[in-house]
């Protein structure tokens, strides 16, 4: 690339070439950054992904609703006493993805289960109140989840993820 210079010690000419090359390389890197960064979610998408509030009062016991947050479906289940007991009866170590039911709900609000409704196998949306455990059943490849959204049978590797949420009041949650 450069004309042959004396291999003994760096000359002033070499320093100039190195300096120019270095500055050009820095410039190239600085130029590439905006071209890549523009593919990140833009400001309006980030704003639309802001936390949402969901009112729980219309959800009767045994019922569940589906809301969308950041483009993903979220199941909010108002569990019956029976469903909570069934979830807590199971020895945690026997589960494919060991997790206690208590760790998947908020203390004092055990009847509310909030999970992301995307099967952890290949991404289909499981159907609620289906399957052997009265939890969720994914029709695509037969994964079966229990009333705590944990995987019990089938190819899915992990439990249905719990999104970040908090109780703003007893009847309102904020997801995100």
């Amino acid at each position, binding site marked *: 690339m450069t*004309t042959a210079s004396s291999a003994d010690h760096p000359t002033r000419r070499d320093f100039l*070439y190195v*300096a*120019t090359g270095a500055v050009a390389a820095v*410039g190239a890197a600085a130029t590439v950054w905006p071209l890549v*960064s*523009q593919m990140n979610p833009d*400001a*309006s998408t980030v704003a639309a992904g802001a936390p949402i509030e969901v009112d729980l009062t219309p959800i009767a016991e045994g019922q569940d609703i589906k809301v969308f947050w950041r483009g993903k479906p979220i199941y909010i289940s108002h569990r019956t006493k029976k469903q909570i007991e069934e979830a807590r009866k199971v020895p945690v170590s026997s589960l494919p993805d060991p997790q206690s039911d208590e760790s998947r709900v908020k203390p004092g609000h055990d009847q509310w289960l909030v999970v992301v409704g995307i099967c952890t196998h290949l991404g289909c949306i499981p159907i609620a109140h289906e399957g052997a455990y009265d939890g969720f059943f994914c029709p695509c490849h037969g994964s079966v989840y229990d009333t705590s959204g944990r995987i019990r049978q089938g190819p899915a590797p992990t439990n249905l993820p719990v999104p970040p949420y908090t109780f703003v009041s007893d009847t309102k949650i904020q997801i995100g």
Partner: protein
Amino acid sequence: MSGPSDFQPTNPALKWIERRLPIMGLMHSSFVAYPTPRNLNYWWTFGAILSMMLAVQILTGVILAMHYTPHADMAFKSVELIVRDVNYGWLLRNIHACGASMFFFAVYIHMFRGLYYGSYKEPREVLWILGVIIYLLMMATGFMGYVLPWGQMSFWGATVITNLFSAVPYFGESIVTLLWGGYAVGNPTLNRFFSLHYLLPFVIAGVVVLHIWALHVAGQNNPAGVEPKTEKDTVAFTPYATIKDLFGVSCFLLFFAWFIFYMPNYLGDPENYIPANPAVTPAHIVPEWYYLPFYAILRSIPNKLAGVVAMFGAIIVLAFLPWLDSAKTRSSKYRPLAKQFFWMFVAVCIGLGYLGAQPPEGIYVIVGRILTVLYFAYFLILLPLLSRIEKPRPVPNSIADDVLAKTGGKSAMVSTVIALMVAGGLLLGGADSARAAEGSTKPPAQKWSFSGPFGKFDRGALQRGLKVYKEVCASCHGLSFVAFRNLAEAGGPGYSVAQAAAFASEYKVKDGPNDQGEMFERPGRPADYFPSPFPNEQAARAANGGAFPPDLSLITKARSYGRGFPMFLIDFFTQYQEQGPDYVMALLQGYEDKPPAGFNLPDGSYYNNYFPGHAIKMPKPLSDGQVTYDDGAPTTVAQYAKDVTTFLMWAAEPHMEARKQLGFQVFVFLILLTVLLYFTKRKVWANAH
């Protein structure tokens, strides 16, 4: 292709590839070992500059296409959302828009170089014709690209240019309908222009490959017009031409960066910041500056078909140049008569460009016709004549002789020529046509905190201006491109996220449908946009005596105007671009209770000094004490006008401060790089001289 190809890689893996696809050898013989005349001047760097510009336009264009929506209802907003929301979207848009102008600026210099030095002569005729094809493709691409933002000028420019084809006898109307995909320019037109605008640059790239191939068959021309005879006449392309091209590119980038960061709207038309309206034609429909000479030729001919033929003919005649000019001497350096007429031709082109931006009235028409005749006379009469009668000066024996004979007085000439070219380009680009505040007084120039290379918005003014907008203007004018969350962003009024959320919640926003299928109202959230006072244009007109209060999101950019010669040349260097804010501020204070004697004020209108035509439907909106300020600023009309205009300038360009900040960093970097490249180039060329 015709360079010494003795390249053999040592690495066995590379050898394996090279034997099956000798691409490394091709690259080596074309761009490393390729013998280049050693007397090339800087006009020869524009080939590399053009290659870079094509790459830049394709790269930024592909990226913009990731965010753009090519539908008539959404195109304008999608471009604004790119500028406002996409990370560095404002930068990408500026690069692409200004890049188109830079692309044409470079191509015109490249073409004039070819004209002057006889680069179209034997054996480079096909090279030249390929160039003409590239130029035609560029014009088509540029035209379609300009339609995509779907502003007023996009729409009406598309209408005018597509209507040209109706001049074709018998088939004309059918052709136009075919182009439109409808009964007028509309969504089908936009969609197909988007598709073709994405396609053509790759066609251009293909023809560029042919262009470079044809070049390498004949070898480059040079300022002496004498072909290389011995090895002493040439140097290897790398490192000599490479480093010279890099230096030229760096200088060009400085020029480019000035537009991107400091004068992004200088070469554009403010009318394009108004969304396309098929019911309203702009007062002056003007193409972008690089089409102006041909637009002038088109309008010079009173007959429709003849005008179209003349306009296309003006470009096609270039393809015949190798046969029109059959003089044996290539370079105009040694053709004293041809040289003078060349510069007159350049002046004719610039003159035609200037006229293309003026209204086709009075003296402009007469001069336009004269210059059109001169344009064609240069190609069809003068050059063939000169080939026969001119006595050229003797050319040097060889390139090596030419280099040794150089006295060095060239650099002064080159820089004056460059200055002339730049001035010519600015003349066309900045000459904002007769939209120059016609039929009204020019607004006085104000002092704005956001003007100049280090301009910043006055936060207090932004907050007060927001209050004035909310309490006075918002009852009739929308601000639909501004979201409440923008109030908390850097470079804006400086509210916190919580304050912006609180501000938003004071508004009622329509949402839905709910589970019953009905629309409902809810308090605003940061992600919502400022609601418009009227649901649609018809409701707005009905409530305002038939007049439509424009959305104010872009008003300060849409109301810019030409400042005439010589101001627009000076403005380029002082970075003055605040015509829009000056106009808005003047308008708000420019009401007169009594119109001057003899002025016929229509019923329902009010007299305003600065409104074009002086009769405005909006009553005087501001009066002293109307809005209370908490920070102690004077509650006068002048203060309200200043504050709300500052706020509207921010609303039109929320990222202005980021643009100027990054611009400064880029300039420091580019100046450093250019200096380093200059000294590197000199060091490399020290051997060759």
